[in-house]
């Protein structure tokens, strides 16, 4: 590596990945406008993105696409788009990761261990991803979830400073989700930085507290769970403003509601207005200022704010389990504790949808259920 690429040679900086004014355009459309973000050591950041933005961002990071505009710094070195220079510092887990299906779990991990020169015992890593019973099984005989856990194991073995995961827990079982969440906590605890790119809000919210949305409108901090230890003033200022606006809207809504009691919730799809009975609704999700009702796996946008709906639906047994989720408690089957700080509610529908449950709301829920 050329010496001029080093900004300073210490390598002991807090910021592992720093993106400055990075932007991307394809022909006539904006993939994402210039944005700036930073991922530090001990920190996991989730980017909630669409397919397009994700493909472009990963393309840039894996060296397929050039850094057209802006600057990416990894561990203090300016990243020029030639991936070989950044190799020891980034570990990737892409959605379509190639694997040696004829080798067993143990042989695969032994190979990675030698390839990356890891000193960690392979057996310990296999236990961490809960594959001890399958260590001698070829990858071709494993389920999708178990194969994904082999990929998690590879991430541990690689031991890079920065881990980039694309859709880390898509279509995997709950055990694997749990393994992944624990893994992210452990990696962060040992000083690594984790960047998660996902199109699934539940994945993003349940893995980390720092969630951003990246799309053609730019980068927005999505949700700061209102936890005491969050001190990002700038990011918090916006949601507060929103809160005030929302409260005003609620006041107005109350006045109209006093006149008569209308219980169905209108949703609008194209030109049609569809009315739903509250008990039909599985949960309500709010993202980007847009509130959507989830009914039987389909999402229906509604013009109401989530705060208004919370008030209207309280008497129907709806519970605000998260800043951006309102769940129909009648439909909840299971409460899963992933880690001490991360929980999910699993619904009683065919797809076993899970909805995030924040830490503060967990206490409230326990109280409601009469548990201490």
């Amino acid at each position, binding site marked *: 590596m050329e010496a001029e690429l080093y900004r300073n040679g210490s390598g002991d900086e807090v910021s592992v990945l720093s993106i400055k004014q990075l932007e991307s355009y394809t022909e006539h459309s904006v993939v994402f406008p210039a944005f700036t973000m930073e991922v530090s050591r001990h920190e996991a950041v989730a980017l909630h993105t669409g397919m397009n933005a994700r493909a472009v961002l990963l393309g840039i990071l894996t060296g397929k696409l050039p850094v057209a505009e802006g600057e990416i710094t990894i561990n203090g070195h300016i990243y020029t788009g030639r*991936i070989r220079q950044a*190799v020891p510092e980034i570990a990737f887990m892409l959605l379509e*990761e190639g694997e*040696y299906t004829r080798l067993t779990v143990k042989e695969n991990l032994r190979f990675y261990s030698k*390839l990356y*020169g890891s000193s960690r015992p392979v057996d310990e890593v296999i236990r961490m991803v809960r594959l001890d019973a399958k260590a001698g099984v070829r990858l071709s005989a494993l389920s999708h979830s178990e194969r994904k856990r082999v990929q998690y194991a590879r991430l541990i073995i690689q031991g890079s400073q920065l881990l980039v995961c694309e859709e880390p827990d898509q279509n995997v079982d709950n055990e694997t989700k749990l393994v992944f969440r624990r893994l992210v906590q452990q990696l962060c605890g040992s000083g690594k930085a984790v960047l998660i790119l996902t199109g699934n809000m539940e994945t993003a919210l349940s893995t980390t507290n720092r969630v951003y949305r990246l799309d053609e409108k730019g980068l927005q901090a999505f949700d700061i769970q209102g936890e005491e230890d969050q001190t990002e003033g700038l990011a918090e200022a916006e949601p507060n403003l929103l809160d005030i606006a929302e409260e005003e809207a609620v006041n107005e809504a109350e006045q109209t509601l006093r006149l008569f009691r209308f219980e169905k919730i209108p949703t609008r799809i194209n030109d049609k207005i569809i009315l739903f009975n509250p008990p039909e609704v599985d949960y309500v999700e709010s993202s980007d200022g847009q509130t959507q009702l989830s009914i039987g796996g389909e999402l229906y946008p509604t013009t109401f704010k989530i705060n208004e709906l919370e008030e209207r639906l309280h008497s129907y047994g709806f519970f605000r389990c998260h800043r951006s989720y309102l769940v129909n408690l009648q439909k909840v089957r299971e409460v899963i504790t992933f880690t001490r700080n991360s929980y999910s509610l699993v619904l009683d529908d065919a797809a076993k949808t899970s909805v995030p449950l924040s830490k503060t709301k967990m206490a409230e829920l326990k109280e409601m259920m009469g548990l201490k």
Partner: protein
Amino acid sequence: MTFSTRRIFAILQKDYKDLSRNLFVSTTLIMPLLMAVLFGRMGIEGIASHYLIINLGFILVGAYVQSSLIAEEKEKNTLRGLMLSPASTLEIFCGKSLLSFIATAVVVAGSIWLSGYNPRNLAVIAIALVLSAVFYVGLGTLIGLFTKSVMEASVVIVPVMFIFSSGSFLTPFIDKYPVLAVVEYMPNLQLLELANRVEAGAGLGDVLLHLLVILAWVLVIHAVAAYVYKKRMVDE
């Protein structure tokens, strides 16, 4: 980035295990040996028949195994992962070529033994065979880079097998069509010519020209493979 034998051996070991479980490829390893047994029992005469088997070994093992090793990494999308690992391109290809080379050496030595070929000057023949093996492994690398899957590689290997093993059939036509004289510089024909001379009692000094021609083929094929890799892999 330092050159690490540990990573080369990791890749070699991984490919060895993978290959030994890949029936599709590993059964082709037996082909030259079967032919050698058959020819040996029938009692073959002449150097040309021995070299037909040896050439078959070179192509089916050296070129075909190497091409399918690389094509499979591309097919299964694992080459990208290797490229994103600390292993350099040179290390990746060294590890793979080493496995193909060892397999070729074992199979060719086995078929020489089984067919009962006993060269007069073993040292010279050994040098020529090693150089040829390196050439065919390079050829396999090139085929692997051009193809996208093991299936495709096994189709491409057929014309290659025809060109590099049937060259000797063209020699009678050289008097009639002088253009075909180029054929005499094919590595397989050079190897055959060299073996004929050795049987006639020639030493290392007498066959140096043939060795140099084969060496030139080795250098050219590896240079082309390196160029194609740069050209193709960077875009993908």
